[in-house]
């Protein structure tokens, strides 16, 4: 077994095995045929994520950016439970889950252990990456303290948030990442409440405020952009944070087949702009969002994003036109603000 | 306060004894009256309670002198106290007569101000204890002070302890 299947066989489900020793980082591959022939996902099939869930896509695409030996941490959540139902694991790399609110702290411990073991000659790799895949509950809410602590300490961990914008694992309860007016089971649409009444926490901006070496947003729909960002996040010396929007068919009430499409629309409407930030470059728009900045006519109205999601269905009723307007104004204001800050946006 | 207690304990250990030093298990605030305890023994010390019936009572701050403060002191016990220069003040404040206890008076505040230029009477009071002769030895205290402090601070404290030892009077 090795990381790079050489034969063009069906044996595409492989463990990632790195024997100790020095090695060059795995090259980035952007040609899909080469990618399909040379890389496998760190997440094996047979996992019990819902059909059409995009969290596995976040993991799979991220793993195409991995440099080599990597240890993965997951807090409690959909991804964790669905990939580790005893005795079957879906992880082709060393993986640990310990609790809900502590993925960042657990990763810090692993990072420290790697340093201590390397220092004393007991770990014979020139480098081992530590990557967290965490949901929105484990990041925005219960896990935020540990994440902030890890960022402040500067531990060299890549923290990837797959944001499906609610507590999907427990049955679609609202989280700090749930957007305004979204229906969830704890923000039902009633006669006086139009779904959630608060906006989502600007988590990536909060991570920028920590002044860590790298922060970015991404979606699996924008795969090339996402893979590049994951590699950058791994390459910086210190903590990196990537906010990946990851649709949930059940929670968003989206047709399974449109799981990737809805993410595309999130970016096309500027609901979820693609950008990256580092202390050296400041904000930079990327991929489709950069194209929209250069050619504003590409920007789609927010309805394009809302209309394929059952969680926003109530907004499309005539009496709620005002709410859609409010949402559009909010999206526009955030987008304009980003344009002002992004150094590569046209002036 | 705890510093004095620790230095005495360390010195006792250098002298081949078993010793124990600990603060009163109460909230401590800088400057507020506090208690600390030292046990010295030829045998290993098992007890881990506070000391209720001491053989020796060391009082660093003479404004604390009162009959209450000597409650529990063993009959025939020793009081080593800082004092403002007035011998009668000590007896009156404690509500005792000459001869009730052995009383040693240390001009700690005066000497500390003179030598350390601050009002810290901790180490000066150790000089008073040394005067007793049987608790710890000056050489061992010197070693303990050198370990606790360094450079000039250590030197000055040693000078202070020696002066305090010499200028302590028994009344």
């Amino acid at each position, binding site marked *: 077994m090795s990381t790079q299947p050489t034969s063009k066989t069906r044996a595409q489900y492989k463990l990632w095995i790195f024997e100790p020793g020095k090695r060059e980082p795995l090259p980035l591959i952007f040609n*899909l*045929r080469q990618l399909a022939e040379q890389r496998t996902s760190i997440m094996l099939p047979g996992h019990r994520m819902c059909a059409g869930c995009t969290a596995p*896509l976040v993991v799979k695409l991220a793993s195409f950016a991995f440099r080599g030996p990597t240890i993965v941490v997951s807090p409690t959540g959909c991804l964790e439970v669905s990939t580790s139902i005893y005795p079957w694991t879906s992880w082709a790399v060393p993986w640990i889950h310990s609790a809900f609110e502590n993925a960042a702290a657990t990763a810090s411990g692993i990072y420290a252990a790697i340093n201590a073991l390397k220092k004393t000659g007991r770990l014979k790799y020139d480098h081992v990456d530590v990557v967290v895949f965490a949901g929105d509950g484990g990041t925005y809410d219960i896990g935020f303290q540990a994440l902030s602590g890890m960022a402040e300490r500067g531990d060299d961990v890549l923290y990837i948030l797959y944001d499906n914008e609610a507590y999907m694992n427990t049955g679609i309860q609202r989280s700090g990442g749930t957007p305004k007016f979204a229906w969830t089971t704890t923000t039902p649409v009633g006669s006086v409440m139009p779904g959630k009444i608060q906006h989502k926490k600007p988590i990536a901006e909060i991570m920028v405020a920590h002044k860590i070496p790298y922060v970015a947003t991404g979606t699996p729909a924008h795969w090339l952009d996402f893979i590049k960002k994951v590699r950058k996040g791994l390459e910086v010396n210190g903590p990196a944070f990537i906010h990946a929007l990851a649709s949930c068919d059940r929670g968003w009430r989206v047709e399974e087949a449109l*799981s990737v499409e809805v993410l595309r629309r999130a970016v096309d409407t500027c609901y979820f702009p693609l950008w990256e930030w580092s202390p050296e470059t400041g904000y930079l728009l990327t991929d489709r969002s950069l194209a929209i900045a250069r050619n504003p006519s590409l920007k789609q109205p927010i309805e394009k994003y809302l209309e394929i999601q059952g969680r926003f269905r109530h907004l499309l009723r005539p009496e709620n036109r005002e709410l859609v307007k409010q949402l559009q104004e909010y999206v526009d204001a955030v987008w304009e603000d980003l344009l002002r800050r992004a150094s590569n946006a046209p002036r | 306060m705890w510093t004095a207690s620790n230095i005495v304990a360390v010195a006792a250990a250098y002298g081949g004894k078993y010793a124990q030093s600990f603060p009163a298990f109460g909230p401590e605030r800088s400057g507020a009256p506090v208690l600390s305890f030292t046990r010295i023994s030829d045998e290993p010390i098992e007890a881990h309670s506070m000391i209720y019936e001491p053989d020796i009572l060391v009082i660093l701050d003479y404004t604390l002198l009162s009959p209450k403060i000597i409650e529990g002191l063993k009959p025939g016990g020793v009081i080593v106290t800082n004092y403002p220069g007035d011998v009668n003040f000590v007896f009156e404040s404690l509500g005792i007569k000459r001869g009730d206890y052995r009383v040693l008076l240390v001009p700690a505040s005066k000497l500390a101000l003179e030598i350390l230029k601050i009002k810290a009477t901790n180490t000066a009071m150790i000089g008073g204890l040394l005067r007793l002769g049987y608790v710890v030895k000056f050489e061992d205290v010197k070693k303990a002070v050198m370990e606790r402090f360094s450079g000039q601070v250590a030197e000055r404290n040693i000078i202070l302890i020696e002066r305090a030892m010499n200028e302590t009077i028994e009344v």
Partner: protein
Amino acid sequence: MGLRSSREIPLGGVGFKLSTEVKTGDWRAMRPVIDQNKCTKCLLCWLYCPEPAIIWDGVKVEVDYNYCKGCGICAHECPVKAISMIPEVGGE
């Protein structure tokens, strides 16, 4: 397959099998079928399959029905509409 006793399982509850043993294909209600004549082998279906259950063998693209849950992302993302979703029941 019998369940193991406490003496027969490894320490600390580590997973001792791979999920590739778990055939999630039986979840499927709709089956993606690739029209090999239309397929341009762009591999976007391979890229976007969340299982992953699309196989590229160097010659052609195939679906691994052992794992495919039938979400239909591949069909939607296929730029030449070479994948159609056929109901499982009576679809064979």
